[in-house]
């Protein structure tokens, strides 16, 4: 039992750290670390830098651009990426539709979509949630009817993240209305330019535009856009939702944020002392650090354990990563809000998420403090809310 990494692992960490901090522009990384929205161009540029290096989709099969990294290497890659503020490769492409196509798709689909997804030539978005199907996703009602060699899709999706940037959408559709609810669903790919698709922005409480409603009105797509078998789309959805295991804790992101909070708390003053010397504040900071250290250890235990574990049989402890990781990320936003103090108050409109064009009203970092706090409440809601995660643990681990 030993916390030390091997010399090879150390070298790998240095290699990824160096690359992330030199190849990806500082301007992009700074925005990520401060929780600001990136432009489409910035996200694309960053992913292409990674892809050129062969590091955009390490989790994919090797023949489609993946790496043969050990679980420890995957961990180090994610940790360094998050700590450097490098935007994660677009999850809809790299950990959702890509792996699903690689696992369930036809050879033609793989050839047509995978390389483009890795390079962000196609921007994908996720058509899962509906107004009436949130936590109970399988109750979704958007339907696809087979008409000749096509599907005709009608219905509505919601919470569709960055649909305004997307070229394609993967949609869970009901294809057999009479079957049991999980058994009549199919996983279908749609070009966003197809007539009948309409995207309506949803403004979130932070004033940002990340999510959208997507309406389907007699949208006709080729039958061959079905992934896997008809009515077996739920298998794809489950595979997709179970895919991201360790990265979801975003330990590296929280580490970087806590370091930044500590730096800023040395600069902000309370009375005649730096905020960091305020006992109450620094105990709150320490409490979050301890939770994060525990989560980092939990994550390392899982990573170490993956070496000897069968694929597809996750360590039971992995289910706590999202539960705990989400709450810790949110706690960092509360601390940042407190650091910003009165200058958390001015609202600076962002131009479609394209950076802030007006001059600021206080320290640069402060403008993002409140919006990030508001925005990150989503983390314990999306990807299976924390209550759904508890249901899963109760059933799968505790045996209720």
């Amino acid at each position, binding site marked *: *039992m*030993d*916390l*030390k*990494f*091997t010399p090879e*692992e150390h070298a790998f960490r240095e290699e990824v750290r160096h690359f992330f901090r030199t190849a990806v522009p500082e301007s992009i990384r700074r925005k990520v670390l401060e929780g600001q929205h990136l432009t489409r161009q910035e996200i694309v540029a960053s992913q292409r830098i990674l892809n050129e290096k062969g590091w955009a989709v390490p989790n994919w099969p090797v023949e489609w651009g993946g790496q043969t990294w050990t679980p*420890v290497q995957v961990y180090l890659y994610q940790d360094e990426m998050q700590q450097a503020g490098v935007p994660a490769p677009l999850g809809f492409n790299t950990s959702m539709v890509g792996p699903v196509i690689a696992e369930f798709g036809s050879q033609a689909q793989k050839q047509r979509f995978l390389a483009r997804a890795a390079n962000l030539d196609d921007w994908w978005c996720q058509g899962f949630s509906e107004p009436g199907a949130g936590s109970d996703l399988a109750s979704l009602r958007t339907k696809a009817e087979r008409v000749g060699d096509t599907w005709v899709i009608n219905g509505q999706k919601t919470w569709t993240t960055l649909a305004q940037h997307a070229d394609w959408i993967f949609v869970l559709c009901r294809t057999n209305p009479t079957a049991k609810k999980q058994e009549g669903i199919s996983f279908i790919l749609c070009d966003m330019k197809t007539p009948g698709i309409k995207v309506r922005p949803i403004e979130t409480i932070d004033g940002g535009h990340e999510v959208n409603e997507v309406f389907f009105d007699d949208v006709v797509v080729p039958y061959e856009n079905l992934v896997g078998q008809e009515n077996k789309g739920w298998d794809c959805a489950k595979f997709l939702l179970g895919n991201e295991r360790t990265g979801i804790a975003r330990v590296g992101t929280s*580490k970087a944020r*806590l*370091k930044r909070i*500590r730096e800023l708390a040395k600069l902000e003053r309370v009375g005649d002392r730096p905020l960091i010397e305020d*006992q109450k504040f*620094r*105990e709150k*900071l*320490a*409490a979050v*650090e*301890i*939770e*994060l*250290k*525990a*989560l980092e*250890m*939990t994550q*390392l*235990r899982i*990573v*170490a*354990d993956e070496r000897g574990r069968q694929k597809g049989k996750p360590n039971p*402890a992995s289910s*706590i990563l999202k*539960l*705990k990781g989400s709450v810790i990320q949110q706690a960092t936003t509360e601390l940042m809000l407190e650091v910003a103090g009165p200058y958390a108050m001015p609202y600076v409109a962002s131009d479609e998420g394209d950076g802030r064009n007006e001059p600021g009203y206080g320290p640069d970092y402060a403008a993002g403090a409140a919006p990030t706090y508001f925005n990150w409440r989503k983390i314990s809601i999306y990807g299976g809310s924390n*209550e759904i995660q*508890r*249901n899963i*643990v*109760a059933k799968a*681990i*505790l*045996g*209720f």
Partner: protein
Amino acid sequence: MDFDFSDDQRLLKDSVDRLIADRYDFEQRKKYANEPDGWSRDMWARYAELGLLGLPFPEAAGGFGGGPVETMTVMEAFGRGLVLEPYFATVTLGGGLLRHAGSERQQAALLPQVAAGELKLAFAHVERQSRYDLQDVGVTATRDGAGWLLNGEKSVVLHGDSADKLLVTARTGGSRRDPGGIGVFLVDATAGGVSRRGYPTQDGLRGAEVSFANARAEDVLGDPGGALPAVQRVADEAIAALCAEAVGGMAAMHALTVDYMKTRKQFGRAIGEFQVLQHRAVDNFVALEQARSMAMYATMMAASDDAAERRQAVSAAKVQIGRSGRHIGQEAVQLHGGIAMTMEYKVGHYFKRMTMIEMLFGDTDQHLAVVAGGGGLF
């Protein structure tokens, strides 16, 4: 990076786990508690046979050269069994002081006796005013010819009543809270001028109030005025060991609670079918896994020679253990309901031990302040 046990560690774990499973169920524990010492001499002999009493000692001193991982393995099993014997007091604390402050001669004279189960030790350190401050020492040691005479009072000396020898912190110079001027003295527990009042602690273990009135020390460990770093080091190792014990207890308490929820029926069904209770059990599981992670972290950092880094890690772990232990303990009692309020049911005893562990070597707030005063864990 590796969380696996070596083959030897696995063997150790198997044998200790088996011992506790076979010899330390709740009924057996009650019997041991009713023996004259408040613990089992027979079990003590078994620990000696298995080599547990010499586990962390150097091989040259009759030990097995085990490190923090070996101690963790034993303490976790002992936590599960709610072990009553003075293992922590004798091996972790007393043995730790001999290892870190004692000379080779002192180690060679005493550690083999400890390993053989023939010598029980206790660490007389806490005082009425000191609470958790390791450098707050009021007991005095004054030169008397070639030796030392001790005067003053020590509080809540764990297993102080059954110890054969006491390791006593006493001041040879400086004022009450000076880091310098502290020595560790070896005192025969039956020496003239030593008086002890033993009592049960809330968790069914034992403590004693010990006073010294011109009591003559047998020996002094190392520098009579420079023992604080060794005491701090032993405290850090002790905290790592307590964290492991707490994890054993929390895991057992959690498992009992989940089992109970599956069998206890109300409103015509198992109470574990109620989602509101399931989610609380899940939160206990999360608290347990976070605590386990931090106990491992403390274990792996406990042998670090960098005192500041070690202290931060150990304090962070103690905070996590304190919080998880309190949460799981209270929830285990609540989820069981009335039965957990009774002496005859096991869960309440785990709850009590967790509570006492939180009070040992610094409580949650004290360790949180240590972490808060450091430069950050990342």
